[in-house]
C-alpha cells in the first residue's frame, strides 16, 4: 500500500515536470524575465515538495491517489464556436463577467460594463502580456513563494485567470462574475486569479466553476486566487463549485489583509469527485477582519475536503469561520480549521464552528478545529458537531402528511438554512443553477 502511494506520487511528479517542459515555451509570459524567475523558484519548490501524502498533517484524510494515478495534460485554447454558443445560457447575462473555457479567457462570452476610472477588470494573460507593470510589487511576497505543492504547480503552469484591480475609494456594487467552464477527459486546467483592492474600495467577486451539462469527464482544475486588501477595503468572495461529477478540483484562496479591511468568503462545494478547498488568511494589520462561511454537500463517492487557516498577526483582529457539511452515501467530508493567534494579536476575537450532518451509515466525516494561541488577552471559541437527521422530527413531519422523502428533504434544507442565510448574494443571485436553487430554497409563502 505504502509502496503504491510512493510510486504514484513519484510518477505524478515526473509527469507534471515533463508536462511543464513540454509546454513551457508556449506558456504565457514565457519571455517575461520576472515571471520566469518565479517559475524557476516554483519548479524547485514543486520538485522538492512533490505531492503531499497522508503523512502530511493537512492531508491526513485526503488521499491524492485518484488524482495522481491518472495523467492530466495541459491544454490549448478552445476555438469551438458551436460549443461557445451552447454555453451561453449557462453563463447568464451579468454586467461584469469574465468567462474562461478550459482555463482560457473567452472574449465572446465575457462582458465588462463601464468601469470607474483606473479600475481594471481583465484577464491575467492580457495583463502579463501588455501591462506587466500592473503586477510585480506583490509577486515576491505573495503566494508565488508559498511552500505549497499545488500553488507551486499552479505558478508553473499559470496561463490565465482573472485580474481585478480597484484604485482607492472605488466601490463596485454589481458582483463581478468569474465563470470557469471546464470539460474534456484528462485536461489539466490551472487558473490564477488576482484581486487587489486599494484603500477604502470594495468589490464582490463570484467564482463559479462549472462543466458542460451532463459532462462526466474527469479533468483537473487547479485554482489559486490571491486577494490583497489595503486599509479599510473590502472583498466579498463567493466560490461555487459545480464541477463535473468525475472532476478533481484543488483550490487555494490566499488572502492578505491590511488595517481595518474586511474579507468575507462564501463557498458552496457541491459537485466534483475530489474537492479540496483551502482558504488561508493573514490578518496582517490591526482591526482587519475576515468571515468564512461554507456549505459542502458530498454524495455518492465524493470526497470534499475544506481547510481554513486564519492567522491573527496584529491587535484587535477578528475572524469567524462557520462551515456546514452534509455527507451522504459513501461520500467523505473533511474539515480542518486552524486559528493562529500570534503574540502581537492582543484583544483579537476568533470563532470557528463546524457542523455536519451524516445521512448514511457509510458516509464519513473528519473534523478538526484547531487553535494555536500565543497570547493571553483574546477571545477564542471553537467547536464541531456531527449528527444525523432527527427521527422524531421525521415522524412529526410525516404525521402532518409529508412523505418520508419530503420530510428528509425539508430537514436537510432546514440544516442548511442558517449558513445560506449568511451568504447575502445567494438569496438574490439570479445565476445559480436550478439544482442549486432547489437545494437552497425553501419556498416560503410571501404575504
Amino acid at each position, binding site marked *: 500500500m505504502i509502496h503504491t502511494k510512493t510510486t504514484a506520487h513519484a510518477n505524478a511528479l515526473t509527469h507534471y515536470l515533463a508536462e511543464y517542459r513540454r509546454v513551457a515555451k508556449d506558456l504565457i509570459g514565457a519571455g517575461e524575465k520576472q515571471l520566469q524567475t518565479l517559475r524557476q523558484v516554483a519548479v524547485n519548490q514543486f520538485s522538492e515538495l512533490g505531492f503531499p501524502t497522508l503523512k502530511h498533517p493537512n492531508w491526513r484524510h485526503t488521499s491524492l491517489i485518484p488524482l495522481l494515478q491518472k495523467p492530466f495534460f495541459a491544454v490549448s485554447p478552445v476555438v469551438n464556436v458551436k460549443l461557445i454558443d451552447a454555453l451561453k445560457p449557462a453563463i447568464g447575462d451579468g454586467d461584469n463577467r469574465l468567462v474562461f473555457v478550459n482555463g482560457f479567457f473567452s472574449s465572446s462570452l465575457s462582458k465588462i460594463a463601464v468601469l470607474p476610472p483606473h479600475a481594471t477588470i481583465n484577464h491575467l494573460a492580457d495583463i502579463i502580456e501588455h501591462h506587466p507593470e500592473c503586477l510585480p510589487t506583490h509577486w515576491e511576497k505573495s503566494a508565488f513563494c508559498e511552500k505549497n505543492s499545488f500553488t507551486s504547480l499552479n505558478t508553473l503552469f499559470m496561463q490565465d485567470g482573472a485580474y481585478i484591480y480597484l484604485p482607492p475609494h472605488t466601490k463596485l456594487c454589481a458582483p463581478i462574475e468569474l465563470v470557469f467552464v471546464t470539460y474534456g477527459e484528462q485536461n489539466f486546467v490551472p487558473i490564477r486569479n488576482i484581486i487587489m483592492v486599494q484603500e477604502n474600495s470594495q468589490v464582490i467577486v463570484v467564482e463559479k466553476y462549472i462543466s458542460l451539462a451532463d459532462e462526466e469527464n474527469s479533468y483537473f482544475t487547479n485554482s489559486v486566487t490571491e486577494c490583497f486588501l489595503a486599509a479599510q477595503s473590502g472583498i466579498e468572495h463567493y466560490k461555487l463549485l459545480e464541477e463535473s461529477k468525475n472532476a478533481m478540483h484543488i483550490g487555494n484562496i490566499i488572502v492578505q489583509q491590511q488595517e481595518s479591511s474586511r474579507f468575507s468568503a462564501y463557498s458552496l462545494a457541491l459537485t466534483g469527485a475530489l474537492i479540496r478547498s483551502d482558504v488561508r488568511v493573514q490578518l496582517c494589520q490591526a482591526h482587519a477582519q475576515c468571515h468564512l462561511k461554507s456549505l459542502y454537500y458530498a454524495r455518492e463517492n465524493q470526497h470534499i475536503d475544506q481547510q481554513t487557516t486564519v492567522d491573527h498577526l496584529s491587535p484587535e483582529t477578528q475572524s469567524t469561520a462557520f462551515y456546514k457539511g452534509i455527507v451522504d452515501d459513501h461520500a467523505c467530508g473533511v474539515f480542518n480549521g486552524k486559528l493562529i493567534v500570534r503574540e502581537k494579536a492582543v484583544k483579537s476575537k476568533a470563532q470557528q464552528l463546524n457542523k455536519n450532518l451524516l445521512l448514511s451509515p457509510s458516509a464519513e466525516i473528519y473534523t478538526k478545529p484547531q487553535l494555536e494561541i500565543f497570547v493571553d488577552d483574546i477571545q477564542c471559541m471553537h467547536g464541531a458537531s456531527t449528527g444525523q437527521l432527527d427521527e422524531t422530527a421525521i415522524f412529526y413531519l*410525516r404525521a*402532518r*402528511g409529508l412523505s*418520508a422523502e419530503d420530510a428528509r428533504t425539508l430537514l436537510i434544507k432546514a440544516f442548511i438554512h442558517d449558513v445560506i442565510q449568511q451568504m447575502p448574494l445567494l438569496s438574490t443571485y439570479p445565476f445559480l443553477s436550478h439544482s442549486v436553487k432547489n437545494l437552497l430554497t425553501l419556498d416560503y*409563502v410571501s404575504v
Partner: protein
Amino acid sequence: MLVIKDFHAGIDSKIILRGVNLQVNAGEIHAIMGPNGSGKSTLANLLAGREGYTITQGSIDYLGEDLCALLPDQRARAGLFLAFQYPVEIPGVSNVYLLKAALNAIRKARGEPELDAMDFLTRVKEKLKLVEMDQDFLYRYVNTGFSGGEKKRNEILQMALLEPKLAILDETDSGLDIDALKIVANGVNHLRAPDRAMILITHYQRLLDYVKPDAVHILAGGKIVCSGDFGLAQTLEKEGYAAILQEESLMSS
C-alpha cells in the same frame, strides 16, 4: 370510525399494550385516562404510525381500512391527526412553510386543488384567531423557542387547519396554565363536528371540565380496565387511580 380489537404491542421485548379494545364513532369525543406508564402515549404513537413498535396481536380498523398497514403520512392524509405530547422543534423551517406543505399534501390526497398563497393565508389567519396566536407565529421556526403553552397551541392550530376526521390529543393539556388550557379547550370544542371524532389522552379531569367527553376510559397495565361517562373522570379525580384499579381487580377476581 375507529375499532381497536384485542390490540397487543410493545417496544423491543417489552410488552406495553396487552389487549386494548376500543370503539370510537364519528362525532364522539373519548377521553383516555390512566396512571403513568400505562401505555397511553404508546397507543397514541401506534395510532399515528410511529415506527419502532412491534404489534403482536389484534387489529385496528380505521374507516374500514387496516390502519396498521398504512404509513404515518398515509394515515395523516387519510384524516388522522396526532397532537404530540412533545411537539418537535425544527429550526430552519418556518411554521407557515410546514402548515402549507401539510395542508397541500392532505388536500392533494383528498383530490382537492392545492391552495394558492392568498387563499392559504386567509385560512390560516382565521385559524390563528381561534387559538389566539399572533401572525408572528407563522414566521417563526416550527416550535423553536416556543413556550410549552405556545407549542400546544401550535398543535391545535395545525389540527384546526388540517381538519382531521380523527384527532388524537396526547396530553395536550399537560403543563398548561388555566388561560392556555381554555384556549386549547376552545379550539377542541370548535372542531367538534358530527363527522369528526376525537380521543383526548389526559392525566387530569381539568380539560374535561371544558370539553365534555362522550366516554371516559381508564387504561392501566396496557388494557382498558374501566369505561364510563364523564362521572368516571370525576370519581377518579376524587379517589385516584389506586381506588378504582383496586375495585376493578376485586371485581375481575
